[in-house]
């Protein structure tokens, strides 16, 4: 079975080279944004195809041997690439998100009035190449450092792209600082664990800092230097935690960096870059530890810590997001919240993986599958939401939700894809986010015989998903529904074409991501199937334990099931019943033959709809926010870019002193 003619390692190498070549070409045509955009898209497409092909081959036919490209023995320095199932999933995610983001960039950047795109496309492609590298290299020191720095510096340039805007430079500096800290912490961790190079049975000589060499020495380390090993793992948790936005580190950089960057870059930052932190955690805490060293490895302790941190991260991040009134800043905080869910799933897995009971180990798999599937889903819907926010910015020139409203009428395509993504992130049934959370909750709640705190953590997560729902209601409602704001009406009056929707390429990028979201939502079996294939294709360390445990069962019509049939979810059948009930409701509404008429809303007869009495984003949930101020997150919002046109002043009544600033709707 050979679905792809190249070995996956060569494919990844090819993908990186395609990006590098694209970077040079786009640098050459930096004065011509359109040409640069298409060149970058071609390079991203080539690299995506290569990466997807390589990933598909690994998932279908299992991993091949590792590939050593460069090596310098005396320096313990070598580029050794190896793509197993876990890497394949992350490669697939990177490929699936970068392609729409590159397509979206073409028209998005064309209208940015900058002298050239030399600061945009070359770093963008290098950024993508570095991410491909970081999820497939086995060198935990030098090439990890090189790829991490490439990713960080390229990201830094991208975040700084609109550096003339106030606050942007500061956000980029913070990002750079936190990433360097994370890099240092992880490298010290690797240094603590590394001993000497080893020679494998196949005669391959591994460098000192190679992942497999570290694995080889780890049992002895865990047994004889437990403190050193624990320090190393703590450093990994902190380092990769910074990257994925874990509380309390995420709050330092993530909410500032995401809104500052151009929207396609925000999509990549939130969609894939923070996922490399998840990759690192999974790799180090599960795959690095050989199964025979389990007795000396306090997996349950690390799991408990991750459950705790994950629960705090998801609760705090989401509550902070609720208080935001800027589209991208709100989405950035919610990324922290969603990263918390992933961390919770991974923590559940680690807590339960050491159990002697096969039923509990099956729940560990449920937690892991939920976490990894949520990585896939979050990448898709969060990058889609950032692209939507970018489209809104593109159409209206603002990220301030208070000035937005009623965009559904003017940007139907964007609004529709945003609806899909918002439903997914809120975990509405039949959406992709629901399926992955379902699995995390399954593992956490049923895992209670092994750890009594797991159901509590899961319940806090369920509670938080009600907050996520409130948050997305606010986002979607304030931007796309409610009444059109005067800014939106003004913009619509200025454009010649009907509506404000974005150019076709941008719509296409959004539609592609929305389709993937819908697909994974209705066929979660596909997602769980992929994750299971990934586990089967990466039998190493504790990954073997997961691969051997009973998987989450998955079929198209029967949906997914777990805990020995005690949990079931069959979205297609739910859709069938819901669809029939929907058709019945529609029939009932039409049955009376009632005539329809459009009319203005009724405001009690003494007021008309007006910008002054529009219900704005900052008014939402005022009463509950008063109780949630402890969570913070309101400090230092980046100054909103001024709208290109001043707000219109159609015969307004005098502003009343109490008007808009501090009234609370209770």
């Amino acid at each position, binding site marked *: 079975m050979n679905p792809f003619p190249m070995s996956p390692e060569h494919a990844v190498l090819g993908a990186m080279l395609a990006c590098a070549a694209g970077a040079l070409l786009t640098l050459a045509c930096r004065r011509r944004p359109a040409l640069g955009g298409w060149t970058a898209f071609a390079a991203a497409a080539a690299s995506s195809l290569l990466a997807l092909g390589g990933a598909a081959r690994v998932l279908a036919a299992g991993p091949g041997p590792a590939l050593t490209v460069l090596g310098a023995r005396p320096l313990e320095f070598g580029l050794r690439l190896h793509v197993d199932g876990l890497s394949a999933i992350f490669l697939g995610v990177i490929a699936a998100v970068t392609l729409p983001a590159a397509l979206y960039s073409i028209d998005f950047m064309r209208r940015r009035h900058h002298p050239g795109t030399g600061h945009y496309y070359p770093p963008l492609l290098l950024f993508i190449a570095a991410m491909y590298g970081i999820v497939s290299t086995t060198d935990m020191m030098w090439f990890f450092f090189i790829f991490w720095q490439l990713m960080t510096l390229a990201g830094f340039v991208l975040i700084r792209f609109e550096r003339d805007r106030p606050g942007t430079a500061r956000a980029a500096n913070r990002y750079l600082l936190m990433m360097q800290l994370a890099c240092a912490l992880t490298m010290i961790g690797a240094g603590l664990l590394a001993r000497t190079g080893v020679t494998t049975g196949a005669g391959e000589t591994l460098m000192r800092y190679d992942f497999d060499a570290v694995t080889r020495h780890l049992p002895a380390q865990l047994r004889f230097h437990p403190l050193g090993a624990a320090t190393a793992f703590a450093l990994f948790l902190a380092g990769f935690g910074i990257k994925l936005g874990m509380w309390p580190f995420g709050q330092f950089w993530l909410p500032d960096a995401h809104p500052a960057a151009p929207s396609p870059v925000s999509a990549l930052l939130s969609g894939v870059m923070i996922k490399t932190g998840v990759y690192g955690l999974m790799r180090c805490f599960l795959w690095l530890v050989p199964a025979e060293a389990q007795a000396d490895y306090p997996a349950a302790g690390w799991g408990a810590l991750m459950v705790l941190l994950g629960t705090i991260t998801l609760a705090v991040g989401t509550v902070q997001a609720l208080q935001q009134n800027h589209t991208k800043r709100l989405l950035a905080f919610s990324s922290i919240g969603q990263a918390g869910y992933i961390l919770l799933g991974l923590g559940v897995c680690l807590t339960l993986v050491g159990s002697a009971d096969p039923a509990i180990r099956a729940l560990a798999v449920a937690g892991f599958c939920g976490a990894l599937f949520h990585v896939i889903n979050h990448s898709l819907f969060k990058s889609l939401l950032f692209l939507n926010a970018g489209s809104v910015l593109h159409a209206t020139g603002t990220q301030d939700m208070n000035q937005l409203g009623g965009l559904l009428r003017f940007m139907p395509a964007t609004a529709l894809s945003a609806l899909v993504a918002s439903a997914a992130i809120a975990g*509405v049934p039949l959406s992709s986010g629901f399926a992955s959370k379902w699995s995390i*909750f399954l593992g956490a709640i049923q895992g*209670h015989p092994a750890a009594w705190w797991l159901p509590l953590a899961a319940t806090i997560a369920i509670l938080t998903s009600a907050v996520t729902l409130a948050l997305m209601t606010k986002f979607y409602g304030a931007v796309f529904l409610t009444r059109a704001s005067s800014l939106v009406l003004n913009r619509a009056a200025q454009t010649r074409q009907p509506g404000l929707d974005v150019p076709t390429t941008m719509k296409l990028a959004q539609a592609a991501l929305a389709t993937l979201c819908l697909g994974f939502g209705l066929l979660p079996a596909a997602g769980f199937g992929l994750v299971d294939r990934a586990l089967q294709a990466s039998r190493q360390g504790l990954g073997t334990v997961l691969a051997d445990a009973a998987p989450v069962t998955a079929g198209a019509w029967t949906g997914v099931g777990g805990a020995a049939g005690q949990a079931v979810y069959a979205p297609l059948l739910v859709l069938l019943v819901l669809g029939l*009930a929907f058709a019945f*409701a529609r029939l009932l*509404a039409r049955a009376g033959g009632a005539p329809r008429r459009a009319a203005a*809303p009724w405001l009690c007869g003494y007021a008309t709809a007006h910008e002054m009495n529009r219900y704005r984003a900052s008014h939402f949930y005022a009463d509950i926010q008063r109780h949630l101020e402890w969570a913070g997150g309101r400090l230092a919002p980046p100054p909103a870019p001024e709208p290109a046109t001043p707000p219109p002043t159609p015969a307004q009544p005098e502003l009343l002193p109490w008007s808009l600033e501090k009234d609370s709707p209770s």
Partner: protein
Amino acid sequence: MTLPPLIPLAGAAANIAVVLLAAPLFEGLLRKLTARIQSRQGPPLLQPYFDLLKLLGKEDIESGETPRMQRFAVYLALATVLTVACLVPMGFPAPLDAVGDAILLIYLLTLAGICTLLAGLAAGSTFSVLGISREMMSMMLLEPLLAVALVTGAVHTRSFRLDTLLNGSVYASGGVPWSGLILLGVLLLSFQGFVQRVPFDIAEAETELMEGPLMEYSGPKLALFKYAQMSKLVVYSSLAVGLFIPWGSELGFPWAWLLFWGKVLAFVLLVTLVAATHARYRIDQAIRYFATLLAAALGALLLASCGL
């Protein structure tokens, strides 16, 4: 699925039919009883059926900027409540037990709430959006209460299957079921909120917000919303009966079925009694009230994790 798919679908149709037929009757009873408690005569028992029929034929005024979204939200609101009805055992096992579990149930219940929110947002009038903001605030604290009860049941029985859970699972711990009793108290104290009746009908608040999210709705759309709300009363009562008052469900078809509806009726009467004798809370009071209940429920869950 072990059963051929036709039997669950037939059961689902039966549940939907019963809910649709019975919901206005319960509403009529509620109205009549409220009136009598308040020394009024009250409308005839069948008035809600006539109301629905009348509304279905009346002019449908669409005042939102995006009528499509308004229609979608309204149809989905009723559809979701009816789908939930298929997941709840009503005198016989839940028809769609093999299709979804407790987690799906929790999230479907929120979907029912989302539809009201979408409708209010799509209408977009200031009063509607004020209403949905309040609705969402109480949903944030209310929905988790039911979730905690279901999770507690799942912890006791080690299952998410609805037939197992909605059969008194909260009491399934050995000895005195402390967690179950606490949750029963929490449920009784919060039930008015789930079915959006006085004193927790804050989002609609006819006298101050003019029905909040529903303000801009008329004709068939209003009929569908009202219908969804009436069905919600029946569905939530069934859920509460299944979770907390399971006794007698093993009696076999006619008796178990009759007993079940008797218990649902008792719940409706309880709702009526509380609604008729209380005044509406303000949203900030309600938030504090629900938050206290939530803390108690989480305490119960902790007890459940420890096997109590």
